[in-house]
């Protein structure tokens, strides 16, 4: 049964040849149920869609899809060169998310319109989109009919090397996900899964902790573009998550069928159904959860974790520990901070590989400490000295450029991945300096402040430096502030198994009590805060970076006594009111009776 495991990594030509070989081999094998991997059954090829449906689909395609997927469906539309992953090239008939065995075409049946039926892979892909890529969910935008129509067009006209209805060359071996009973995610099952991912060598690519950092540089898809293994801690970015990221069945399906066109093989014939559930349960258990171990709330509008724009800082007595595992840190809740590419000014960052960070904060009478953790598959430290000064923001002259809009496959952003000069990973955050003087909601601009209101910026780089800057505008180089640098402290910086942990301490105020030079932290006030992140292997430097929206940090005050006193007084007052009312009623009734 090795035929389902063979994986095509070489050139498309070789791939096609191998594919043909595979298909002929599998054609011989059909008919022996015993030959099928566990959990699979032989399926029938779906009928060809009628011509009017194909014609109607063309209209949908040229309104909605052509812009990325291109006129001939070769994944080379106008938007393609600035995207990573690139839009799908339909011509080869290679589709990632399927219920069919490795190498086979996905399920598509123009008669099957039940979403999530497991009988119409392409329909589900168009309906739910492919999270983590630019492919959006089309549900609510295109009708079911229109989605079926456009797929009829794509599968018959744009898939050119294969034919969905050709019984000679195509087979369908379908994962029976609807009838397989999932194994409970018991402690035992998760534990077995944890061992299995080592035995099955999953960690070679996905990394010891599953952050996709095992083989971050060398993986290529069928078209020769760099791709990265999934980060199991961000299930909402799983392509096959079908807008239901914590559903273990999606992981079971992907693991059973593999991801066509990528190095991810199918493990169907080497792994029993039970073991596959164990692995799926383990992988699912890694996805980020809240303090109580419950799945994070997913925002249905973005399919990402819900955002709270306040980063609270809790008071502690005495020294703040530099160990994130310390009880005081464990007690403090963390906040999800979403990161987008900096796309406002040149050089714009169309592909940011850091799409979120996690932040916690504590403060004592002297300083406030931020614990920032984020996933980065690659630890990047520039070799030798960087050609620009740490204060320089305008580094376009040093080759930090944005992707040209149209370069063809060879010059595209996808081709550039893992071929950039390596700079430092870095993280930074800014506060307005004189926020006390700015009435809310006014703020200095999110991008390094402005000329009138300056920003107080702290930047850590992977070379171990922690610097304090003054920002006076998006295009102004920073002003360095040596006197303050002595006071800020790097409590911890560590890259381990695909995750950075950086802990930064800064004084609550400058030397004097004023706030003319440095942000002064007043307890109980909302202070605007913006985060910036750089992935050194993504060619990030200067303004080419990831950036957050405005968040607020607030030093949580200890609860004042009035909070306990007043409600008690109010409650007593209500009791008196009740007494008065009842007496009145009683008197009135008496009066009536008399």
């Amino acid at each position, binding site marked *: 049964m090795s035929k389902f495991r063979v994986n095509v990594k070489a050139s498309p030509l070789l791939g096609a040849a191998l594919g043909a070989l595979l298909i002929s081999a599998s054609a011989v094998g059909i008919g022996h149920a015993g030959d099928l991997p566990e959990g699979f059954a032989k399926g029938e090829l779906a009928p060809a869609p009628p011509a009017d449906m194909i014609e109607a689909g063309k*209209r*949908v395609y*040229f*309104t909605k899809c052509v*812009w990325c997927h291109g006129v001939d469906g070769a994944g080379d539309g*106008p*938007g393609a060169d600035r995207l990573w992953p690139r839009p799908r090239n339909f011509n080869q008939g290679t589709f990632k998310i399927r219920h069919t065995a490795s190498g086979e075409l996905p399920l598509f049946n123009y008669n099957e319109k039940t979403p999530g039926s497991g009988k119409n892979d392409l329909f589900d892909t168009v309906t739910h989109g492919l999270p983590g890529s*630019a*492919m*959006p969910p089309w*549900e*609510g*935008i295109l*009708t079911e009919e*229109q989605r079926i129509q456009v797929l009829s067009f794509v599968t018959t006209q744009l898939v050119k090397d294969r034919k969905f209805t050709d019984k000679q060359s195509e087979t369908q071996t379908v994962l029976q996900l609807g009838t397989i009973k999932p194994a409970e995610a018991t402690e035992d099952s998760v534990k077995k899964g944890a061992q299995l991912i080592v035995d099955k060598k999953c960690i070679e690519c996905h990394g010891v902790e599953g952050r996709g950092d095992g083989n971050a540089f060398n993986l290529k898809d069928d078209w020769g573009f760099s791709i990265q293994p999934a980060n199991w801690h961000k299930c909402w970015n799983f392509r096959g998550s079908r807008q239901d990221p914590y559903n273990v069945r999606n992981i079971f399906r992907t693991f059973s069928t593999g991801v066509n066109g990528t190095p991810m093989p199918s493990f169907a014939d080497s792994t029993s159904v039970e073991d596959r559930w164990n692995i799926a349960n383990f992988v699912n258990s890694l996805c980020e959860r809240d303090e109580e171990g419950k799945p994070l709330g997913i*925002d*249905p*509008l973005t399919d990402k974790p819900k*955002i*709270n*724009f*306040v980063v609270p800082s809790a008071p502690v007595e005495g020294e703040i520990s530099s160990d994130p595992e310390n009880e005081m840190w464990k007690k403090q809740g963390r906040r999800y901070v979403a*990161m*987008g*590419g900096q*796309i*406002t*000014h*040149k050089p*714009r960052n*169309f592909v940011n590989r850091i*799409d979120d960070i996690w932040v916690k904060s504590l403060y004592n009478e002297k300083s406030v400490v931020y614990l920032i953790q984020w996933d980065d598959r690659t630890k990047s430290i520039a070799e030798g000295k960087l050609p620009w000064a740490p204060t320089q923001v305008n580094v376009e002259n040093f080759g930090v450029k944005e992707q040209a*809009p149209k370069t063809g496959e060879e010059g595209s952003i996808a081709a550039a991945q893992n071929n950039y000069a390596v700079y430092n990973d870095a993280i930074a955050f800014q506060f307005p300096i004189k926020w006390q003087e700015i009435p*809310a*909601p*006014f*703020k*200095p601009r*999110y991008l390094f402040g*402005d000329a009138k209101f300056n920003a107080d910026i702290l930047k850590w780089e992977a070379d171990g430096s922690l610097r304090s800057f003054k920002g006076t505008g998006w295009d102004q180089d920073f002003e360095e502030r040596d006197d303050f640098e002595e006071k800020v402290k790097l409590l911890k910086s560590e890259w381990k198994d695909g995750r950075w942990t950086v802990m930064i301490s800064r004084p609550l105020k400058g030397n004097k009590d004023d706030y003319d030079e440095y942000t002064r932290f007043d307890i*109980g006030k909302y202070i605007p805060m913006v985060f910036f992140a750089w992935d050194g292997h993504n060619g990030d430097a200067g303004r080419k970076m990831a*950036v957050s*929206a*405005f968040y*607020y940090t607030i030093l*949580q005050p200890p*609860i*004042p006594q009035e*909070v*306990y006193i*007043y*409600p008690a007084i*109010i*409650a*007593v007052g*209500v*009791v008196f009111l*009740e007494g008065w*009312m009842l007496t009145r*009623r009683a008197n009135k009734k008496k009066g009536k009776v008399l």
Partner: protein
Amino acid sequence: MKALMSVGALIGVLGLLMLIGMIFGVVPSNTVRLVEGYMPMQVLSELAVFVAGFTGLSYLANSMGMAFPRFWQGVLFWAFVQMYLKFRIYPPIPFSVRAMYGVVSFVAVFMWVSANEEDWKKFRQPILNVLDANTGFHKALRTMYLILVPLLIGGFSFVTMKPSVDEPIELRTVHPAPPASTKVHGKTYTLQTSQNPYRVNLEGKYDQAYSNKLIVEQGMGRLMAPNANPWDEKAEGYLKYVREGGEIFFQNCHFCHGDNLNGRGLHAFAFNPIPANFTDPGTIAQLQETFIFWRVAKGGIGLPNEGFPWASVMPPWEQHLTTDEIWKVILFEYWHTGYYPRTWD
């Protein structure tokens, strides 16, 4: 009549079950989607369906001799409206707004139960019963209320007084007043008189009536009009410019504004304010083309203060695109959403 009421009751029960499921997270809240642009209408009609359902339920209960006290009808309906607003509507409405609706619906319920003397008597009878406490049951109930009410009010004031770290609410003006003119790439454009140079007919004359015929059709999917494919090799004039504008859009704008121009692009989840949704009838459909030109050219940083220039990540596109490219992108945005730009007259 009875059959009709039974159907109503069935709908009411189903709707209630669905809402309860949504509250407890059993039924995903997007089971019945709120359709973009039609949300107010949808909410109103859903509420109307619920009211019909409740009427049916009440009628059936009445005819089966299990009449529901008018007092509890009023209280429960008010509670229902509150739950509906909290759990059905997405994105969530802030508490202050819900409180306003709460007062309005309270007044409405009050008017309903006090519409005539008989109804009003029926409504207040349970209250008086508890107050007078003539039976053992009512006595127990009264004692319970006497203890619970001060506790609840005290608890509520404690919760409101406790320092919280809720997100501050900031109200931003989405369409601030435009300037009279704007200077882009050295040329001054008067917003009242400027025209999109690419909105032209086959003779090359500005012609909105011509372009209006070639935009995509309204309705689900918003598909291109038949025989008006910008990707047709023979397409020229307006349609050719639409394609060129689309190419620019999908090289620059879709990252935030999304593949369907609905503000749900790749990076959109990270930003606040969220990118504009052009398919919403409240954005470009309400604006003049020159207003869009000003907004695109100057970006977030060019907004007046009520538009929060410090927070918007909208690029000043004059830094990235030529004037011609900006006009073409605008042309494409109107084409793709199927809206007409508003005119000055």
